[in-house]
């Protein structure tokens, strides 16, 4: 009735360690069990959201500072 679990080549790792992996896509290619793959995909999605938001936020800040620069130059003239 139970799955005959296959021995795995790679030891499982904790969530905290997962967030530290630099090349997560490469890491996913290694033999991973389905439950660990779910956690790895979760980490990639969380990273993606963070990157997108930080990028968008950085752009908003840049736009604001460029407005300030334009305003300052106009004022000086």
């Amino acid at each position, binding site marked *: 009735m139970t799955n005959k679990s296959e021995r795995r080549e790679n030891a*499982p790792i904790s*969530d905290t360690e997962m967030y530290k992996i630099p090349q997560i896509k490469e890491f996913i290619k290694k033999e991973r069990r389905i439950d660990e793959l779910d956690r790895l995909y979760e980490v990639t999605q969380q990273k993606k959201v963070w990157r997108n*938001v930080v990028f968008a936020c950085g752009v908003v800040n840049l736009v604001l500072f460029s407005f300030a620069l334009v305003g300052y130059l106009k004022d000086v003239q």
Partner: protein
Amino acid sequence: MFSKYTSQQKGWAQAFLNVLIFWGMSNIWMSYSTQVLEINKIVFALTTYATCSFCLLVYAGYGKLSKETMRSVDTWAYGIIMLLNYFITLNLFSLTSATEASLIQRFSVVFSVFMSWLFLLRKPNKSQLVGVAMIMLGVLHVVSTSPDDKIFYLYVLMFLAGIFQSLRIFVAELHRPNKKAAEDNSIKTRCRVIGYVMFVITLLFGSMVLFATYLEQYIPEIYKVNLVVEFSDLFSYKSILAGAIMGVFIYTPIRYLEFSAAEKIKTENYLAVTALSFFSTLFWEWATSPLTGLSLKSLSLEDFMAGVVVTLGALIMSIGKLYSDKKSKADIHEFLKVELQNIDDVEETRDILANSLEHFNSDLDKTADALGIHTNIIEAVFKDKEKILAFKPSVFKNVSKNHRRNVAGSDSLTGLLNRNGFMTALKDASNDYENLSLFFIDLNKFKPVNDTYGHEAGDFVLEETARRLKNAFPNKSVLTRLGGDEYCILLLGEDKKSAELKIKLIINEIEKAISYKEDLIEISASIGLASYPEDTKDIEELLKLADNQMYIEKSER
């Protein structure tokens, strides 16, 4: 350098640093920006939030709750309320001195207590009522002695600030990712979540500003109200730079220190320190006045006394809450009686308590929870050397009912039913349901866990397995740990065919690696299934059949 200080000491230092330095500076900077630099408040607020959210997100780095926060509808509600609250605060600081504005802001406490009582049914205690009365008195005095041309606006802003500040606190309590982040006890996770909320506000603010400048071209009359932003304001470098200074150097450290201090010394202690914000604002307003040109002339001696009253009121509330939390023990006379005649009552009371304490390994809190009484009742009984205290009859009835259900029939480690409790539940279920299916689960590789990681890890695995099974079968099921590493799940009203479909779910839950400290522990399970009435019509044989099935399965491995 700071390692010689305990976490608590660091927490107190951070709380005082935040309130005495950063809060004071924040109030001064808002007054200076609005009154001296004459910034556009919307552009200022937009820049504050944009820069602060960027700093918080970069500091926090990637991690948990990113998706959840951005997708949560609560985040937008939280953002909108924060935005309105900040805008009202800026208007308040533009009308009066920073010290007076910080006092007027305290009116929010009155609303918070009132709303808690009205909507959350949290009845205020004496210290809260005294505190609220003192704060109301002080704040109303400050507003009523303001110049006539400002008095009406100050009253309006006082009410609005009160409403939105308390709404902000309520929404923060209800905001799911924020709650999860607080439970996570990680400063970075909390900074990340607030960073996202602030980003949402930035987007909202940005859209508002663009919409307002669009309106300007078609409905110029709207600017007579002098409330929204004009296109030229977007290039106000003073507003943008002042906002950026606020966001990076004041708002970001305030947020970080708030989370860090609250995590180390608990939120209620942190809130007690915030009561001192009047003095910090007053000091900084006085100390920086030669540089800022801000005047404290409007602050009379009477206003100062009102400030002292407000601060004392806030302190009474905070310290009163701390004290009442620590002393919120039940009145022992409501639960216990002095029994000089009937010694059996005394013995029964002591037996129930001793048995329950033993069951929960002398854990007072767990014992009290299970019996539905307060810990000080248990302490009182065991401190009673003369042995004269017994439960009152009405209390005894409830306590013995709770004892039967939560102690005699439950497993102290996992909180699931134990064998006795389960057998009773099994018999009851056969009277109520036509079909029953029983899984007998035995963990594999459990002994090596104890041998390798120790018994503490073994207990953790047993608890985690119970937690997962409870989550997997939240309804129409009875779960038990029969002993050791054996669990049973009784599915109510399910025949064998539908029960077989659940086997995969159980295996998946159990085989997911368990994270224990720095290690990941993997276990598996052998499962036997028997159903009533398909396999047997004798309910007592059901457990035996499932057990046999499990052994057959185990021997095949």
